[in-house]
């Protein structure tokens, strides 16, 4: 098989095209939301929220409700609850995350284990099944992705200011607490968008890895997002092909490609930008 054939052959399959479109949409929205996420130090939150979506997915199955609805309610609900628990209980954010995310995931396993004779597709929930995505799923995913992207497009300035300097932003009149909650909800929705493509366990990589590459190589926020989006789109495209050629799990392959790009960027990176060393040396 020539290289050209190797590239063109999978495009003959509708399922591959759908998977390609879905994972590019997922990669795009994850890269944009992930860029703010890494700057806010919320990588662990991404992991927590994806696990929290699990009981919603199972409950939706039990109630024969749409998968996206269950996942969205569970993930957004947990996101807001984490913010609320952290504030109310005066706990560190990561403590609140740890408690709620494990609790929600346990609830998911509990519900899952009560399904009689249902061996079902636990593997699909956990690791994604982008090649099995339907037209309806693709539509739902794209609509959700558009909502998230439109919200970020509308509030990019406010999110940037409140991420960089929450005190200064709040004093200047930005509704920082509400922006924090809104951003948590955006992460949750992004995770819902991504669940089918890469699954609960690996979503965090789609969010964090492209943005981390952006952080490594870019010194401005616009460039960070640009790099993240590039990696976020290239990862799924390359990953899907590789998984097709090697007949490997698609979600995992996509994540591996992005991880490889991260490692290359890390090794190739030259002078540190605004690194810890810079901070200390600048005293005058």
């Amino acid at each position, binding site marked *: 098989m020539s290289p050209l054939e190797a590239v063109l052959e999978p495009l003959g399959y509708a399922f591959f095209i759908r998977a390609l479109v879905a994972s590019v949409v997922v990669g795009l929205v994850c890269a944009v939301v992930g860029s703010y996420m890494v700057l806010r130090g919320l990588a662990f939150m991404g992991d927590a929220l994806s696990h929290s979506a699990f009981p919603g997915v199972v409950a939706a199955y039990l109630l024969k409700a749409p998968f996206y609805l269950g996942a969205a309610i569970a993930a957004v609900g947990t996101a807001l609850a984490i913010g609320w628990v952290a504030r109310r209980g005066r706990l560190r954010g990561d403590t609140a995350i740890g408690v709620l995310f494990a609790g929600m995931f346990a609830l998911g396993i509990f519900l899952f284990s009560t399904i009689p004779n249902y061996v079902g597709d636990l593997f699909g929930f956990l690791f994604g099944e982008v090649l099995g995505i339907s037209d309806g799923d693709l539509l739902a995913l794209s609509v959700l992705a558009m909502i998230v992207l439109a919200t970020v497009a509308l509030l990019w300035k*406010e999110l940037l200011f409140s991420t960089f300097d929450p005190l200064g*932003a709040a*004093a200047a009149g930005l509704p920082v607490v509400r922006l924090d909650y809104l951003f948590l909800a955006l992460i949750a929705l992004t995770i819902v968008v991504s669940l089918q493509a890469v699954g609960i366990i690996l979503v965090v990589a789609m969010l964090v890895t492209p943005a981390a590459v952006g952080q490594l190589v870019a010194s*401005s926020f616009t*460039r960070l997002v640009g790099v993240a989006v590039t990696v976020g789109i290239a990862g799924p495209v390359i990953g899907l092909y590789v998984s097709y050629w090697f007949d490997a799990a698609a979600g995992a392959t996509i994540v591996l490609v992005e991880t490889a790009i991260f490692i290359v960027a890390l090794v190739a990176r030259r002078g540190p930008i*605004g690194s810890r060393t810079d*901070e200390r040396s600048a005293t*005058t």
Partner: protein
Amino acid sequence: MIAPSGGGALAAGAAATLTGSAVQLRDVTVGYDRRAAIEDVDLSIERGSLVAIFGPNGGGKTTLLKLVAGLLEPWTGSVHVLGGAPAQAARRIAYVPQAEVVDWSFPVSVWDVAMMGRYPRLGPLRQPGASDRDAVREALERVGMAGHARTQIGRLSGGQRRRAFLARAIAADAELYLLDEPVTGVDVPTQEDLMDLLAAESRAGRTVLATTHDLAAASRHFEQVVGVNRRVIAAGPVSLLNDPDVLARTYGGHLLVIGERGVLLDDAHHHDTPSGGERHFHDEDRAR
């Protein structure tokens, strides 16, 4: 510089008594986790003043600043800023956090930081336009950072970093600058430069309120001072810093007065020492 009071900008009634005040605190108590950080604070600051809040670490300087910024709600008493509640005046307030709490590796340039000063007035629907760019350019020129507009903030010196944040306040067209430790950790010539900029802002009618635990800097550069240690110990002209009694009461026992003018703080570099922790020893000493 104390601006003359009067002027009819404010409506009649209760607000009229606030005319001329940039900041007016009445009987305010506030803290964290049910523990009061500052209590029963009464304070009035005229528009156009250049004021240093001094006092021991943990004495409530930053709390006072956050209260004025509207970042903390008073438990009791009232806070009036620029004639209303802090939230109503928010777009005329610029708050500059301590350099220590800023993430200097954040991927923003000096230009970006100054432009953030324009965001609140734009709102979500409008993008920065020509007038915003003009305001940022002018602000950067005023603080002498026009040549560093595109520099990522982590690559700046300590003095340049503070200039970048000052440019944000200027670009925001703020009337009240609240600065947390603006001259801490920079050398004396840099302090002079920064304070010249702040003095110029104050002469232009803007109110500058800054915390500092550097008494030498406070006495060199500010016109008025407020001594804070859980309460407002004293407020008035900078000459208060020559009053050993004011210093002793503000710093509890953490202070040695050497000779007539020299002042040495024994806790200036111990950020984590709670102000109350060791005080009893010195208090007993004094009592005898």
